[in-house]
């Protein structure tokens, strides 16, 4: 028994699979089966079998297709994606599956077209991702994970399109001349490394998602549930499709699956966010943290309500948003602190600029010209400071960003004092 990695072939490489199998056959090995991308080969007399591969797109009745080939003498061995592997005894001396060059070339052109369509889809997803991207993307691992997946998707898609086009030209040459000189072993090794790379990237993405779940991010949890739903549902659908010839059953299950997906997602999001909301209600914060409290302004302030939420990711290990409101003798004080700690100064600068850009955009959308007055100042003991609307200040110090909102003019000596204490 000989095991050979046999996964990761794209449709267009059907010809290479054929050549590879025939090479193995001439060395006295025949393919028993392919399971999870591994080909199992058994020994037999040399050159007993000859292999021929076909590639199929849009074939409605796969059983009819296989029967047709078997009737002629090509025994079905296995399918690798769209590639169908057939075998017959060499002594039967059957003509190859494809005897018409033009029909064969037309067939593989379909594969190139399909690739191009998937490429366009990926580009659209990428554009949407980058349009919506701002500093909030890097606050949570889930944002980073999506970014990694999209970037990887783009590079992978570009790589595959170029690779497949080269392969197409090469296969056309093989069809025309029946000549080839390709080192199959190297090709299979490259495929194996690519597969490992895929698994690694998926692993990283899943780890990032899971870490977010442990940090209490409900979005990540909902996404994991949704992905699991899609995965399991897809699997069940494929089982139904392969086991039953009843198309109606398949269609009914598909509809249930889609409606279920549409119903489950908003429900899950609502449940999760309500859980999250309860968790963040009325948290009593310790004194002397790096955030503003009502008692900083008025010593005996009675806190009526407060809200705290926290996020963390690889690039921004800690960020939180704390809000507090107090009421004493009809005097209402509210303070708010947003805090971001980047792993280095440039991440902090990115967040700082992103925050300001977001505010500018909001300002533009509201079309009130003077609501957010942006101006630079060096009143605060930090690297960069921008005052908004006289009440809020955004401060950058080393790798940290603070957004502090206090009562009254933020540039008053008392308020500046409070801010300096916080960022110390």
């Amino acid at each position, binding site marked *: 028994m000989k095991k050979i990695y046999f996964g990761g072939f794209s449709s267009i490489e059907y010809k290479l699979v054929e050549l590879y199998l025939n090479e193995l056959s001439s060395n006295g090995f025949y393919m028993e089966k392919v399971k999870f991308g591994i080909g199992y080969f058994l020994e037999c007399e040399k050159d007993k079998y000859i292999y021929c591969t*076909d590639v199929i797109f849009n074939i409605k009745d796969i059983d*009819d*297709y296989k*029967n*047709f*080939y078997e*009737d*002629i*003498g*090509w025994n079905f061995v296995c399918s690798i994606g769209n590639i169908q592997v*057939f075998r017959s005894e060499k002594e039967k001396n*059957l*003509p*190859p*599956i*494809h*005897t*018409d060059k*033009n*029909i*064969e070339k037309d*067939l593989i052109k379909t594969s190139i077209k399909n690739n191009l369509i998937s490429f366009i889809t990926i580009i659209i997803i990428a554009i949407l991702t980058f349009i919506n991207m701002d500093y909030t993307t890097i606050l949570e691992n889930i944002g980073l994970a999506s970014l990694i997946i999209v970037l990887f998707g783009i590079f992978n898609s570009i790589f595959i399109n170029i690779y497949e086009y080269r392969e197409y030209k090469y296969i056309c040459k093989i069809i025309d001349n029946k000549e080839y000189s390709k080192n199959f072993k190297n090709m299979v090794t490259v495929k194996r490394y690519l597969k490992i790379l895929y698994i690694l990237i998926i692993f990283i993405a899943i780890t990032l998602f899971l870490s977010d779940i442990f940090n209490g991010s409900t979005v990540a949890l909902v996404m994991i549930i949704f992905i699991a739903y899609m995965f399991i549902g897809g699997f069940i659908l494929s089982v139904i499709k392969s086991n039953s010839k009843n198309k109606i059953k398949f269609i009914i299950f598909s509809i249930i699956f889609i409606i279920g997906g549409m119903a489950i997602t908003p429900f899950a999001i609502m449940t999760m966010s309500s859980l999250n909301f309860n968790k963040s209600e009325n948290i009593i914060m310790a004194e002397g943290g790096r955030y503003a409290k009502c008692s900083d302004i008025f010593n005996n302030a009675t806190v009526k309500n407060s809200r705290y939420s926290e996020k963390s990711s690889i690039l921004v290990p800690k960020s939180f948003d704390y809000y507090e409101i107090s009421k004493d003798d009809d005097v209402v004080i509210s303070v708010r602190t947003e805090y971001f700690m980047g792993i280095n100064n440039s991440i902090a600068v990115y967040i700082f600029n992103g925050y300001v850009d977001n505010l500018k955009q909001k300002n533009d959308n509201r079309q009130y010209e003077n609501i957010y007055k942006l101006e630079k100042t060096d009143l605060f003991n930090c690297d960069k400071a921008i005052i908004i609307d006289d009440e809020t200040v955004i401060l950058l110090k080393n790798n940290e960003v603070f957004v502090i909102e206090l009562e009254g003019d933020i540039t008053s000596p008392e308020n500046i004092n409070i801010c300096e204490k916080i960022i110390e």
Partner: protein
Amino acid sequence: MAREQLQTLSEPMYYILLSLIEPRHGYDIMTKVSELSKGRVVVGAGTLYTLLSRFEKEEIIYLYAEEKRRKIYLITQKGMNMLKDEYIRLKNMVADGDFLFKK
């Protein structure tokens, strides 16, 4: 695209249609084609499958019967006309080239 191609028949197409003057299934067609062409034209399983599906779609042939999962096809009147047109076209072409050998 397929429609345009079918205005003139390619060599395998011509022989497949010729063999379908009588009801035949896949393997039968294959052997008949090489018999008719005296082994000159060989049609592979994949090529045959593709062409039969295309012919059926264009109503040049039709499903005559189904025996033990074997599909048996027969040429239609449309296909017959096409075949005859092609025969006349080819004959004219040969006749036009006759002078090459009459010198």
